[in-house]
């Protein structure tokens, strides 16, 4: 339970910090008109809202009022947080966005699907087959069906894959 409290403090702190940033950065906005409300007023209001709710969330946490984690069909409330899987998924997304410009969308997308499905417990070879099929189908549909070409990368010039 200690870690849940730490996280709540951190999130409340983050909200308040975004608020402080809003308030500070808003002072750099140039306001010219004298009588009407300029481009600063609304950011100030948003900043105040964030600072107040962020601090209130910290106080609520200190008084032991923690938030209730959301319920969902596929969520098992009785198991402990599986941080490793969350980290793997984040890593897979990072790899995907780094690789798009290097090897092209189809390969990056296949790796994203394969990595995510595998991290979540799928059989590796089945995940790999579905990943490759899915990436190729989407690439072809985009190029020929929607007329939007995703970067083909290493498949540049290959018929069908390079739109």
């Amino acid at each position, binding site marked *: 339970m200690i870690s849940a409290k730490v996280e709540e403090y951190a999130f409340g702190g983050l909200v308040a910090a975004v608020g402080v940033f*809003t308030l500070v950065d808003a002072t750099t906005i140039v306001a010219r008109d004298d009588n009407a*409300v300029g481009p600063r007023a609304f950011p100030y209001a948003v900043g105040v809202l964030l600072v107040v709710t962020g601090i209130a969330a910290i106080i609520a946490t200190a008084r032991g009022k923690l938030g209730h984690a959301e319920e969902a069909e596929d969520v098992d409330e009785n198991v402990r947080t*599986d941080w490793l899987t969350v980290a793997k998924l984040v890593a897979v997304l990072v790899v995907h966005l780094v690789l798009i410009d290097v090897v092209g969308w189809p390969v990056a997308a296949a790796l994203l699907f394969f990595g995510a499905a595998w991290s979540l417990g799928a059989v590796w070879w089945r995940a790999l087959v579905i990943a490759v099929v899915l990436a190729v189908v989407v690439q072809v549909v985009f190029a020929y069906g929607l007329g939007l070409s995703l970067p083909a990368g290493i498949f540049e010039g290959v018929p069908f894959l390079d739109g």
Partner: protein
Amino acid sequence: MDSITALLEGFATAAQPEFLLYALLGVTLGTAVGVLPGIGPAMTVALLLPLTYTLEPTAALIIFAGIYYGGMYGGSTTSILLNTPGESASIVTALEGNKMAKAGRGAAALATAAIGSFVAGTIATILLTLLAPTIADVAVQLGPADYVALMVVAFTTVAALLGSSPLRGLASLGLGLFIGLVGTDTLTGQQRFTLGVSTMADGIDVVVVAVGVFAVGEALYVASRLRHGPIEVIPVGGRWNTREFWSRSWKPWLRGTFIGFPIGTVPAGGADVSTFLSYGAEKKLSKRPEEFGKGAIEGVAGPEAANNAAAAGVLVPLLTLGLPTTATAAVIVAAFQSYGIQPGPLLFTNNSTMVWALIASLYIGNVMLLVLNLPLVKIWVKVLQIPRPYLYAGILLFAALGTYAVNFVVDDLIVLLVIGVIGFFMRRHGYPVAPLVVGLILGPMAEEQVRRTLQISEGDFSALVTSPFAAVAYGILIVLLTVAVVLRVRRRKSEVTV
């Protein structure tokens, strides 16, 4: 009478084979995302936004409306047949529907949900047809101060009145408002909060935020506590087309409709409130209250009807005022804006053909949904059994694809990931995500209206409250807040004494 003619013309447009196909595509996708855990209509509409830029606006909006209605139908199938609670709007259905399914009366539960949704959806769409043009006529006369009042009401109800923690709702709203601030100020043309990054000058795209918070946030959250093991789907049993079925269902359907529609219409709703009220009403009026909690069909029929009627009700402020009161409605407003159309009172004069084709497609979509969800329900049972690793991997893939397809820049994917991680922590700690999306879409509109009000009044702040309409709106809001606080205090007291 004018609106009847206009509606008939709308039917003429919507009944063209091309538009019928788009409607079918929309309701099928909608039912699928309603059935599947982990994705909802808001995220699906957001994902499809970049892909539909090549379509004409009417076609795209018909698809989105189909997804919106379809999501409401699909959710009930999941909550009746899956052993775990479902999407918030259908949790009440799960109370009785799940019990019915376990007792071998699954067919009756599914049928009363589908037919009830159809009856409520159709009646509510008729009410929308009759009311919307009249409200639009009145709304044309509203000034900027009145819009500010409506938005303040919407902000407060979405963030603070719904959901279990008003504080966390307001914090979520604040984050959404902040994201909405990033970019170029429309009135003075200067950049705000862009940190000097050039891609931020156009602001953070609504698609990226909605997909990040709904798809990536949800996928990470589910992954952190994934329910392992086989997916337990209750087999569909029993007969439904019996005299008892109809005699016990028809009154709850109608009552649910007339509870749901008004609640959807005023910016104090969301489908959940209406389902709880309908459930309570059915329990109170039932001749067999002892059956509630053990599988009473009235407890499925009423809330399901209320749920769909509320969904149609939400379209009233959306189309006539441009005011979204749910996350999905907010994303649909963004869809309108991406086509350069501002939903609001002028929609019925400036884009009359489009809006009536859209309304006509709602009638058609409801008929399609009845077919998809009654005789064809077995297909969705199969969809429900997709192994979760592939489902969530697919959600992540399409989230990344949809985001990348907005501008074809990798920077958007970085923003997607950051917002996804924020959405993950919000779910862990009970911060609702809907206020964030509503704040993001309504925030810039609210700022513009506030500044216009004060420009007209030359800086006199009292102009914000002196218009009669605005004064009444703030008055109602104060009453609502007082009632909410009293109820909360009472509940706390009763918890203490118990």
